[in-house]
């Protein structure tokens, strides 16, 4: 009886081990491509342009201690960056953040750009899981353009923006991300 049990466990273990081995190999072969995809999702030139007109690159903000403090106190902040143009001039600051209010299917990941005068230069969605054709419309310029030029020194109220019809969750989630970025900007970068 015990022998049988060992045999059963052994076969399961073998199947598991072989599967794990195959996966480990595949994971290794695709690791770089996957990392590249994840990075590209956030560094697409179209996104950079939409967030801060004229920018070609987002660099990590040089005051790393400040960024660490911010991340420690605000667990939805992913990064703080500076947007630079082709000549290397700083155009403004960019906050990369998750939303604080869940969308329909999860958190949304955004860039929110701020001009030196403290106005929002643009926002762009990096990743989301909202419904295709509904919540996904929050990624379109028709929705995101309304944030350009808004005052980045105080929270934007729900009544100050036009939500996407039928996508209340997604719109609210989007807005919460923008407001989270505003909170970080006013607290640490002004």
């Amino acid at each position, binding site marked *: 009886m015990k022998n049988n049990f060992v045999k059963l466990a052994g076969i399961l273990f073998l199947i598991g081990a072989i599967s794990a081995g195959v996966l480990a190999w595949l994971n290794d072969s695709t690791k770089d491509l996957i990392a590249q995809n994840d990075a590209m999702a956030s560094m697409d030139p179209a996104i950079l342009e939409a967030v801060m007109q004229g920018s070609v690159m987002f660099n990590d903000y040089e005051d790393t201690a400040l960024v660490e403090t911010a991340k420690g106190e605000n667990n939805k902040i992913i990064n703080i960056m500076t947007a630079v143009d082709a000549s290397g001039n700083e155009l403004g600051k960019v906050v990369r953040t998750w939303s604080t209010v*869940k969308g329909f299917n999860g958190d949304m990941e955004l860039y929110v750009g701020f001009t030196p005068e403290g106005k929002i230069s643009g926002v762009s969605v990096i990743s989301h899981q909202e419904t295709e054709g509904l919540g996904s419309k929050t990624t379109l310029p028709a929705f995101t353009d309304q944030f350009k030029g808004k005052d980045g020194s105080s929270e934007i109220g729900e009544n100050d923006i036009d939500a996407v019809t039928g996508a*209340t969750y997604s719109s609210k989630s989007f807005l919460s991300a923008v407001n989270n970025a505003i909170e970080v900007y006013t607290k640490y970068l002004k």
Partner: protein
Amino acid sequence: MELVSLFITSFIVNNIIFMQFLGTCPFLGVSKKIDTAAGMGIAVIFVITLASIITYIVHHAILVPLELEYLQTIVFILIIAALVQFVEMFLKKSAPGLYQALGIFLPLITTNCAVLGVAINNIIYEYSFVKSLVYSVGTSSGFLLAIVLFAGVRDKVDYADLPESLKGSAISLITAGLMSVAFLGFSGLQL
């Protein structure tokens, strides 16, 4: 209180069946009688909560430090399968009536999308341990709510005069759809 809001949101506003579609198979399969449905719902709450705790710990204590995240699917599903096996043995001894009534659907809790879905979501949303606990209990309670409500409605539907083609799953799905409309109304709920 953020945790209360999280509970209500996962319980009603983002109801696992009517809004997220996870757990639909047992939902359609076990909801014919209210007591069986209730029993299933409670078993699911138990499994989802325990599964969330164990998978959470395994993920953060083993998979992440060892950079084995790609094994998440396999490891999680095995944990869930083992858990369901234990629940089955436990029910067989302590509640044989319920065990009989649930029949094939008990081992099928393993393939209940809701269990794996909640476990994975805990990781994706980067919840703390307490939050994932609240999320799990809230979500699975939402499953209980949905399945019991549905069983109540189906009881009545069985006596209705329907065109032949619509009997069975077709009318069940349409009914679920109408209930889903009701739950959609919660989306404006501000907490």
